[in-house]
C-alpha cells in the first residue's frame, strides 16, 4: 500500500528526515516511536502533503507517486491524518464541516453526494459508536472542545471518511484513560484487512490497546530499529538513548 524509499525532508534549511524507508501493507498496524525532534510529526505532515517541505526520495501509495498529489488529492485517495492539535474553525458547525468533507471525498471517488438527512443519520450512528453526544456535532468545529473531545472528533472523521491509510499523530497525548480507551476502540473497530494504520506515539500506553504488527524507532530522521509489539515494552524500560 505504502512504500517509502530514501525519503528526505527539509524545512527552513533543516534536514528533518534523512533517508527513511518504510513499507506498509493492507491490514497492518505500524507504530512509530522515537524521541522528541526525531521527525515523527514531519513524517505525518509529509505523507499528508503539508506545504513548506523540500522532499527527496519516493513515496508510492497504491501505485501513485504521492509527491505529485496535492493535500486534498491525497485525502480523497484515502490518506487520513488525525492531527496532534486539531484546528478550531470558528463559526463552522461541526456537522457542516463533516458533511462538506465527506461529500468532497465521495465526489472524488465518483460516488453520489449525501443529502443532509442521509448524512445526519449516518453521522449520528458513527457518533454513538464513539460515545459522542449529538449536541457536540452542532457546536463550532473544535471551538471550546476539550483535548479529549478534539481527539474523539478526529477518530469520528476517520470512521466517516473511511481512509485506506490512517495516520494518527500523537492522538494519545493529553487523553485520560477513558478517552484513550474510546479512541483505541474506535481504531480497532475500523481496522480490517484492507486498511492500514501508522500510529505515531511517545508512549507504550496506546499500544496496550491497539496492538501493532510492527514498531519502528525513529531517530535523527531515520528508522533505526524495527521490531514486533514487544519492542514497545522494551523501550519503556531502556529508553531511546541506547538506540540513537
Amino acid at each position, binding site marked *: 500500500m505504502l512504500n517509502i524509499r530514501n525519503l528526505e525532508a527539509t524545512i527552513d534549511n533543516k534536514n528533518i528526515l534523512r533517508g527513511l524507508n518504510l513499507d506498509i501493507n493492507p491490514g497492518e498496524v505500524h507504530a512509530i516511536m522515537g524521541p522528541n525532534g526525531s521527525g515523527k510529526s514531519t513524517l505525518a505532515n509529509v505523507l*499528508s*502533503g*503539508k*506545504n513548506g517541505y523540500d522532499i527527496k526520495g519516493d513515496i508510492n501509495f497504491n501505485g501513485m507517486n504521492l509527491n505529485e498529489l*496535492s*493535500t*486534498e488529492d*491525497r*485525502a*480523497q485517495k484515502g490518506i*487520513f*491524518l488525525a*492531527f496532534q492539535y*486539531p*484546528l478550531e*474553525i*470558528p*463559526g*463552522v458547525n461541526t456537522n*457542516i*464541516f463533516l458533511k*462538506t*468533507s465527506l461529500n*468532497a*471525498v465521495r465526489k*472524488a471517488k465518483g460516488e453520489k453526494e449525501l443529502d443532509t438527512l442521509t448524512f445526519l443519520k449516518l453521522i449520528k450512528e458513527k457518533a454513538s459508536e464513539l460515545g459522542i453526544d449529538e449536541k457536540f456535532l452542532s457546536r*463550532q*468545529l473544535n471551538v471550546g472542545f476539550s483535548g479529549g473531545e478534539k481527539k474523539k472528533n478526529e477518530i469520528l*472523521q476517520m470512521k466517516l*471518511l473511511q481512509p485506506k491509510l490512517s495516520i494518527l499523530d500523537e492522538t494519545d497525548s493529553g487523553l485520560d484513560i477513558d478517552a484513550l480507551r474510546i479512541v483505541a476502540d474506535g481504531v480497532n473497530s475500523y481496522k480490517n484487512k484492507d486498511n492500514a494504520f501508522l500510529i505515531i506515539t511517545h508512549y507504550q500506553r496506546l499500544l496496550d490497546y491497539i496492538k501493532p504488527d510492527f514498531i519502528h524507532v525513529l531517530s535523527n530522521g531515520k528508522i533505526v530499529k524495527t521490531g514486533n509489539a514487544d519492542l514497545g515494552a522494551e523501550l519503556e524500560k531502556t529508553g531511546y538513548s541506547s538506540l540513537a
Partner: protein
Amino acid sequence: MKTEDLKNSKEYKYGFTTDIENIRAPKGLNEDTIKFISKIKKEPKWMLDWRLKAYNRLKVLKEPNWQKPKYPKIDYQDLYYYSAPKSSSEKPKSLDEIDPKILETYKKLGIPLVEQKRLNGIAVDAVFDSVSVATTFKGELTKKGIIFCSISEAIQKHPDLVKKYLGSVIPLSDHYFATLNSAVFTDGSFVYIPPNTKCPMELSTYFRINASETGQFERTLIIADKGSYVSYLEGCTAPMRDENQLHAANVELVALDDAEIKYSTVQNWYPGDEKGVGGIYNFVTKRGACRGKNSKISWTQVETGSAITWKYPSCILQGDNSVGEFYSIAITNNFQKADTGTKMIHLGKNTKSKIISKGISAGNADNMYRGLVDISNKASNSRNYTQCDSLLMGNKCGAHTVPYIKNNNATSTIEHEATTTKINEEQLYYCNQRGLDQEEAVSLIVNGFCKEVLQQLPMEFAVEAQKLVAISLEGSVG
C-alpha cells in the same frame, strides 16, 4: 465598451448588457435636467420645487474627500441622469406588458417577475436604470393596507405620506451626495406599513444598472407605522464596463412606536476587473430613524461588489427604549476598496445598539471600518456593543478600523472589541487534509468568520449570500 476583453473575466456572472432602446435626459447636471426628470415622471410642482431647492443647495456644497479610498474627479456634467427603457415610458399596468427583453434580463439575474414562479413569499420591485419596471404582489399587499410601489408612483398617489417623511431622516442639505440624490433621484421603492400590521412577506427591490455613462440615483423610503413590522431586502448588479459608474442612493427608514424594520442588502455591483479597471462607485446614504418608543431598526449588509463602497447605514435612536443594529460583511478583492461602517446616535433613554462588522480583504484591496457611537447627555442607561473583526488574505491587502466614540452620559456604556487576523494556513491545511480543495476551504472558513452576520439574513438570501462570499474570493489564496 471593450466587451471582448471583459468576456474573459468569468467571475462576475451578472456582467452582461441588455440591448434595449433608451430614453435619456441630455447629459449634464443643471436645472433643465432636473425639470426633464420631474416632467417625465409627471411630478407635482411641490416635488419639482423640492428638487430645485436641493440643487441650489448642492451648488454651495463641496464633494467630501476625507474617505480613505480616493478616486479620480467625477465630471458631473458628463453624466446622464436619466435613462429608461423606451418601452416603459408608460409604466406597464400588468406584468404581461413589460418588455420581454427586461423580463429576460431579470430572469437571467435569477429574479422572477412572473408571480407564479416567485420565490416563496417575496414581493419584488424591479428598478432598471432610472425606472421601476415592475412590482409584484401588489394586490395581496393592498388588502392589508400595505403600500409597496415605486417612489414615483407614491409621489403621485400618496403625496401626504411622501411629503411628511421624504427628507425627514436625510435632510435636503445633508451632504454632497445625499443632496445630489435629492435633486436628481429617479426611482426607487416606497413602503408604508399601516399600524399593527406585520407585513406577510419579504419585500425586495432589485436594482439593475444597464445603460452606460449613467448614474443611478435611487431613493427608497420605508415607513413602519405604530406596532408594525417589515423585512426588506435589496439586491444590486450591473454590467461589466471599463468605465466607473456612479451609484448614489438615499435610503430613509422611519420606525414609529413599537415598530420594527429589518433592512438587508446584498450588494454585488460590478467590482471592476482584476486590474482595477471599471466598476461601480457605490456612494450611498442610508439612515433610519427609530422615532417611536420601543422601535427597532436593523441593518444587515453583505457588500461584495463595487470598485469603491462608501456608506454608513445609520440609526438615530430617538424613541426611548429603541434599538439599532448593524450587521455587516464587507469583502474586497483585487483592487476593490471599502470605507464602510455605521453611526449609532443615541438620543432616547434606555436605547441600545449593536454593531457586528466583518471585513475581509484579499488581493490588493483595502477595507476600512469607520463607525460612530454617540450617546447624548439625555440618553440615560443606554448601551452599545461593537465588535469589528478583520480577516486578511495574502500580504498585499489592508484592513483598518476607525471607531469614533462619544459618551456624554455617565449612566451609559460603550463596549468595543476589535480583532485582525490573517487567514490561517494551518486551518486551510486541516480542511485540505479532509478532502476540501483550496476554494472550498476558503469559502468554509470565511463563511464561518461571517456567520453572525449571515444568520441575520432571511433564509433564501442567506444561501445566496454564502455562495456570493465564496465567489467573491475565488482565486484569492495561492
